[in-house]
């Protein structure tokens, strides 16, 4: 941390500070961006190179119980993608669900320095933290699954809204999570309790509860807003993956009523009704979704683009995984977590000749190209659901290089392409826009003020790419990666190992809420209440990002 660096002659892209490709020095001192560096600071000559803040992934699946099941279930996917150790780094395996070490090194190897695991059950938090601890280089955090939580449902159903808000804060804090996550709200109760049924609309009754997804979603948006979390409720909508789901998605977006809300991997929720003779082949709903997001500044989304090839469906949305089982081959994993969640896993391959897969690919690109505010429609493949994060450089090229995109379009299912709007879009992303959707935007949406930017005082997470007309090549292997001011990758090689930080929030709550929660544990959990909260040993390096009231110095 003590070392200093001066990066000279590079073209700097720092959209958060209005820097768009200027050649200027970037200085680093004590792990932070500084105004100047001492004369003896190590110099990196970045002539012919592009300097950006480290990438920030707002939505991926890299650690925790379901990820480990997905790893274990497909040894055949690891065999041909091994990650050998070096003198200083650990070995691992890749494939669509890499081992923890390979995950950290490969993110770093693409110039990413922060990533958010998007779905962890509270009961799985300890496990997720153990894995994140073994995920090197990057800073990381996770979103905790609360959208099917039985006790929270009971409080909401009984109109005990203050207790609901306190219990939500408790759950986020004791699990060391970064944000609340809703997945297919209401779906788990039907899946587990009603013979594998599922929610089909926002007004379905949720099993034995006097609740609907509409009530649940609105309740969480309200509570999270009141808590002033740095990142708002992160929603995986109902009917994900289903033809015609664009209507459900728009209805859900309207529930936000002006309050900040984030919609995950919206590509999977942007399908229009079936086209032609088919009952199931979706049309594209990208334009409607993009328009809604464009005109509603409270709404943000990550795209969840689909990239052809091997992927793994892994989701808290168990009924969805069961539906996809018929396309995935022989393996299917389902895992129920008491009182909290469901989970499904299916190995999957997206094929460019298959109508639905080609449509999904097109919808993802359309969303990017129709978005008018790159700060609110940010980059993701919902790794590994839409494709592995190692496909990011290719996705960047698809956005930046019209000719490349056209050539790829010629190879996919043409019927699907005809029914998408992709042929009409000629837009190309600029490097500045790429810097926004991959770094500055996600950091801002996460409320990470010291990430995604290179202003004085920012975390010295910096990536330096060699300029290349082939943007896939350029973004595949940065020449230098600096994390917390340390030169991790130099001339494409790892020089040192590094352990990143856990990023989490600790919202305040009325301690009296524990008297409401504890009896429920005694009755319905199989772990004692006293053993549930995760202690600090699981986050040896961590940073608490304050909530709005905490930042303002207020204590309720």
């Amino acid at each position, binding site marked *: 941390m003590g070392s200093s660096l001066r990066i000279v002659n590079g073209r700097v892209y720092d959209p958060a500070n209005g820097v768009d490709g200027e050649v200027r020095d970037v200085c680093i001192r004590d792990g932070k961006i500084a105004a100047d560096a001492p004369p003896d600071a190590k110099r990196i000559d970045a002539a012919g190179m592009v300097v950006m803040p480290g990438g920030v992934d707002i939505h991926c699946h890299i650690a925790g119980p379901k990820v480990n099941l997905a790893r274990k*279930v*497909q*040894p*055949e*996917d690891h*065999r041909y993608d091994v990650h050998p150790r070096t003198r200083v780094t650990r070995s691992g395996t890749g494939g669509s669900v890499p081992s923890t070490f390979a995950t950290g090194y490969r993110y770093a190897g693409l110039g990413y320095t922060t990533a958010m695991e998007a779905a962890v059950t509270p009961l799985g938090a300890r496990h997720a933290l153990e894995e994140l601890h073994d995920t090197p280089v990057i800073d990381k955090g996770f979103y905790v699954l609360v959208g099917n939580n039985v006790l929270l449902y009971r409080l909401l159903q009984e109109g005990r809204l203050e207790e609901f808000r306190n219990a939500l804060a408790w759950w986020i804090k004791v699990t060391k999570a970064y944000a609340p996550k809703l997945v297919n709200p209401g779906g788990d109760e039907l899946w587990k309790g009603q013979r594998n049924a599922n929610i089909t609309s926002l007004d379905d009754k949720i099993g034995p509860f006097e609740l609907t997804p509409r009530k649940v979603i609105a309740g969480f948006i309200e509570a999270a807003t009141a808590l002033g979390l740095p990142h708002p409720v992160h929603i995986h909508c109902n009917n994900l993956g289903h033809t015609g789901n664009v209507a459900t998605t728009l209805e859900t977006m309207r529930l936000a009523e002006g309050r900040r809300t984030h919609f995950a991997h919206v590509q999977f929720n942007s399908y229009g009704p079936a086209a032609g003779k088919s009952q199931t082949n979706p049309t594209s709903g990208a334009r409607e979704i993009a328009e809604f997001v464009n005109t509603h500044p409270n709404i943000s989304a990550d795209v969840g683009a689909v990239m052809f090839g091997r992927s793994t469906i892994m989701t808290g949305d168990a009924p969805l995984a069961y539906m996809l089982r018929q396309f995935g*081959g*022989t393996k299917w994993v389902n895992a129920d977590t008491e009182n909290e969640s469901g989970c499904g896993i299916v190995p999957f391959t997206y094929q460019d000749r298959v109508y639905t897969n080609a449509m999904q690919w097109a919808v993802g690109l359309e969303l990017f190209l129709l978005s008018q505010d790159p700060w609110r429609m940010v980059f993701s493949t919902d790794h590994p659901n839409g494709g592995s994060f190692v496909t990011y450089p290719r996705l960047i090229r698809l956005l930046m290089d019209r000719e490349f995109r056209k050539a790829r379009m010629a190879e996919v299912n043409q019927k699907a392409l005809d029914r998408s709007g992709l042929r009409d879009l000629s837009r190309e992303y600029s490097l500045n826009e790429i810097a926004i959707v991959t770094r500055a935007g996600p950091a801002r949406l996460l409320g990470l003020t010291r990430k995604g930017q290179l202003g004085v005082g920012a975390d010295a997470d910096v990536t330096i790419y060699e300029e290349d007309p082939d943007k896939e090549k350029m973004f595949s292997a940065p020449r230098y990666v600096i994390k917390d001011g340390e030169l991790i990758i130099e001339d494409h090689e790892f020089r040192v190992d590094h352990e990143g930080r856990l990023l989490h929030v600790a919202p305040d709550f009325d301690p009296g809420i524990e008297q409401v929660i504890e009896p429920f544990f005694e009755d319905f959990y199989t772990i004692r209440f006293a053993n549930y909260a995760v202690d600090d040993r699981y986050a040896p390096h961590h940073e608490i990002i304050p909530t709005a009231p905490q930042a303002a110095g207020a204590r309720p």
Partner: protein
Amino acid sequence: MSLAFTLRTPPTVPLEAEVLTPARLAGLSAPEAAKLSVVHGNERADLGEFFQVQGTADGGGAGEFRLTGDLSRVKHVGAGMADGRIVIHGSVGMHLGAEMTGGEIIVEGDAADWVGPEMTGGRIVIKGNAGHMVGAASRGSAVGVRGGEIVVFGNTGNEAGHGMRRGLVAIGGDAGDFAGVSMLAGTIVVLGSLGWRAGAGMRRGSIVTMHPVELLPTFSYACTYAPLYLRLLLARLRRLGLPVADAQVSGRYQRWSGDAVELNKGEVLILEA
């Protein structure tokens, strides 16, 4: 004269020698071949530390080479080979001809587990016994042999032809349990007896046996007949040296369909006594 390798110093721990393919040896002199890298346990070593190398590689294209000695700790011989020929005088270790696409391997001895896993072409002939997983899928993978032939004169262990999709596995002796488990297509011929639970979960494909066997309760008797393709196949196996009797070539076979828990489009043919 072709290259000839004689095991001089038996490895004390497993030796991985995927360099032993005709393509990798093409055009090399004996001293050059001796310098090729192998992995001895967790260290790199020269092939020549273990083998005495004589002769020169055949000129032009993939040639033939010989290995002599007890190679039962030498793994991956011929892995990934595409053409040429390997003759092994002695026993050989695991993963012989793994994922090979063409060419031929002859073993004048026994072979350990995983002979020709996930191969797509070529031929492997084992004159002795072979271990488990002959022509099988690797763990987690649904597809084993995708093409080519494996002929074992002796017995094999469990899971021969696990998940095979095309090609032939012929066994002169007895097969272990779960022969042809989860097979997708292709043919397994067993001149000796089948172990337990042959063809469990098979979708398509044929398993042929010359001895009575009790199948899983999800197989059902269809008919008794003398399939022509089998006659041709058995005649060919006889030419390859397997002890196929006339009565087997001309015999009538009970056809059992299965596995009913899957597509029920596979068959087990049992020679009628």
